[in-house]
């Protein structure tokens, strides 16, 4: 009888990385359903291509460099889904695939794989596509025949009267990227993530709340501020991208600061920047500051004495 000798503990949680990532995939499903409902089956095709490209890129890269294949942890699936959610439904499928490959290979794997990337892969993938294929990335399909611009573009143009109703914006009946339009579906995912303990509420609530409070005086009304948080990629970014583990601070106070920073830059870009949308740039900028936020917000050990 051979006994195994190891140091404690001898008991482990069942919530592994794969379980957490699978939960994120589940939380993203309502938004996928909404996208299919609003934009049709092509939305599903874009997501499928982006996910397949992400998983294949991860598999092939890891095989090529001879490291352990990690596609079973679902993190590449999450990246593929998030990238697709940040694309217009009309995007050429090869561009969606290219975005996934850039996200996985350049942003994630070249920095050492899961947990070691400094920037959110899906966000950088989106930004690369946005700068490379500006036309395709800003060609919107609208759920109704009358609209011709996204709510953010309308607000920038000062054309508040053409905005869809708040309720329609909340449901997702507006122009925009395929996974970002339905606030309702994203919030369902948010509640699921909170209930499962996958993320803490701090970043998301601070980010969205601060955008609301900063937009209010700028637009002059609470309904304008509400339109701001229901427009563009704010909810998608605040719920699913600003809460990414590797690229955001791991302390609670750090997460609060991260949310505040994201909100500040989002509002600055939306109001005065040269682009209508600022969420992805804001989150990317804060990703870069993350190591500093983590260092500044180190927890104080109980009973610790300075020496």
């Amino acid at each position, binding site marked *: 009888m051979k*006994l195994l000798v190891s140091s404690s503990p001898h008991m482990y949680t069942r919530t592994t990385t794969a379980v957490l990532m699978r939960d994120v995939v589940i939380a993203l499903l309502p938004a996928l359903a909404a996208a299919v409902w609003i934009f049709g089956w092509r939305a599903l095709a874009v997501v499928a291509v982006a996910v397949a490209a992400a998983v294949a890129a991860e598999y092939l890269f890891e095989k090529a460099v001879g490291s352990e294949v990690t596609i079973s942890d679902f993190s590449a699936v999450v990246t593929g889904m998030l990238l697709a959610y940040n694309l217009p439904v009309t995007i050429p499928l090869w561009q969606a695939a290219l975005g996934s490959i850039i996200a996985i290979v350049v942003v994630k794997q070249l920095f050492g794989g899961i947990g070691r990337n400094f920037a959110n892969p899906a966000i950088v993938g989106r930004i690369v596509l946005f700068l490379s294929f500006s036309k395709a990335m800003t060609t919107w399909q609208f759920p109704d025949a009358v609209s011709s611009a996204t709510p953010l573009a309308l607000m920038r143009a000062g054309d508040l009267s053409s905005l869809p109703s708040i309720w329609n914006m909340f449901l997702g009946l507006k122009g925009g990227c395929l996974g970002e339009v339905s606030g309702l579906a994203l919030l369902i995912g948010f509640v699921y993530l909170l209930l499962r303990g996958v993320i803490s509420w701090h970043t998301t609530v601070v980010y969205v709340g601060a955008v609301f409070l900063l937009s209010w005086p700028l637009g002059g009304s609470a309904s304008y501020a509400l339109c701001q948080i229901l427009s563009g990629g704010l909810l998608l970014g605040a719920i699913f991208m600003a809460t990414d583990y590797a690229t955001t601070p791991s302390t609670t106070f750090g997460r609060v600061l991260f949310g505040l920073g994201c909100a500040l830059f989002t509002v600055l870009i939306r109001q005065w920047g040269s682009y209508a949308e600022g969420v992805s740039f804001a989150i990317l900028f804060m990703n870069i500051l993350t190591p500093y936020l983590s260092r500044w917000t180190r927890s104080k*050990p*109980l009973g610790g004495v300075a020496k």
Partner: protein
Amino acid sequence: MNFWIQLKMHGVHVPHHKNTASMPAVIMDCPKSVTIPMSMHIGTPARPLVKVGEYVKMGQRIAEADGFVSSPVHASISGTVKKIDSFLASNGRRIPAITIESDGQMARYEGLKPPVVRNQEEFLQALTDSGIVGLGGAGFPTSVKLTVKNMAQVDAVIVNGAECEPYITSDTRTMLDQSKLVMEGARILQKYLRAPKILFAIEDNKPQCISLFEELCRHEDAMEVCSLPSMYPQGGEKVLIYHTMGRLVPEGKLPLDVGAIVINVTTLASIARYLKYGLPLVRKCITVDGSAVKEPKNVVAPIGASLADVFDFCGGFKAEPRKVLYGGPMMGITVPELSEPILKNTNAVLAFAEAEATPPASTSCIRCGRCIAHCPLRLMPAEVEDAYAAGDVAALAALKVNLCMECGCCSFICPAHRPLVQTNRLAKAQVAAYLRAKAQKEAVKP
């Protein structure tokens, strides 16, 4: 109770597995032989007083304390001293151990009688003679812990009945089966330590113990029950002091420095038993459980009995054991052989089959921050791991890894199954050496 402090507690919700909580302890058959190590406590090993071939009786002192921080050892059965040889302790040290072959009589040593205790000095002497050490796990000699120079310093004695480790129910059984001895122990502390307040700290997954002690405390002065949320590591000394009294034990200080003494509930019962009957610490109530054990139960075993004998008493194994532990699954120590003996501070022996024994493979850190959010001492295990990998000892010292009590919450909760507390242990050793060297360097400076 300090409600707000409790609310903010960091720790983990471990599965309880208190399968044996309703099983009163049964006395184990006398084993054929016992092997009693000379160090079952923190401090200098005891010095053997007997020779090979000598006949000893149960309760007879067979080794004496060597110095102040040490503890005597008593024979746990009657029989002949078979051999005195070297024994490999779990901390890697080699110490002598006395093997006694039983005569099957369990004959009690005639010299056992209640000690005469009239004052604090005699009380502490009695404690020294009793061989009692901290039974919660640490094994610190109780006589040393209770040697308090300035009585006015003590504001409260916390009787630790938290028992937050999964599986273990031996303290639960002490509280239920020996409540009178526990209360007597508390009165003894009031008398000889002049403890102004006695707090019974019990986790709320033991409602029977809580209601029993609330009832018992009603008839006493300055004793109360503190019901604590069931969250691991509620029973950790510093955690317990913070949660019951709201006081933090600063780095490098002792509980006494903040007016607290924490004593395990079974230790307290043992003190009362010694003062009442003169019976030193020769047997121990232990929980025998785990997926490989056929009939899990609470067993009163003589100290020095082999784990093989204890498991045999519990019907043997229903599956091949692959990992056997002293203590619970969060902080327990693995045993290399079933011939290892029951020690004074053993409160459980667990045997696990293959499925529970093999640690899961670790994957890359995903920086989720769970280890930070769950550390009861608010340390940052993920950052410690990075600093350790970088060989940056100054950063490790700044991260205060030396405070780590090795409770294992970080390793338990890590979704990537990183060996975090294991890294903390290695880092602690480096930081200790670093701080010593730094202190020396500063001492040389003019």
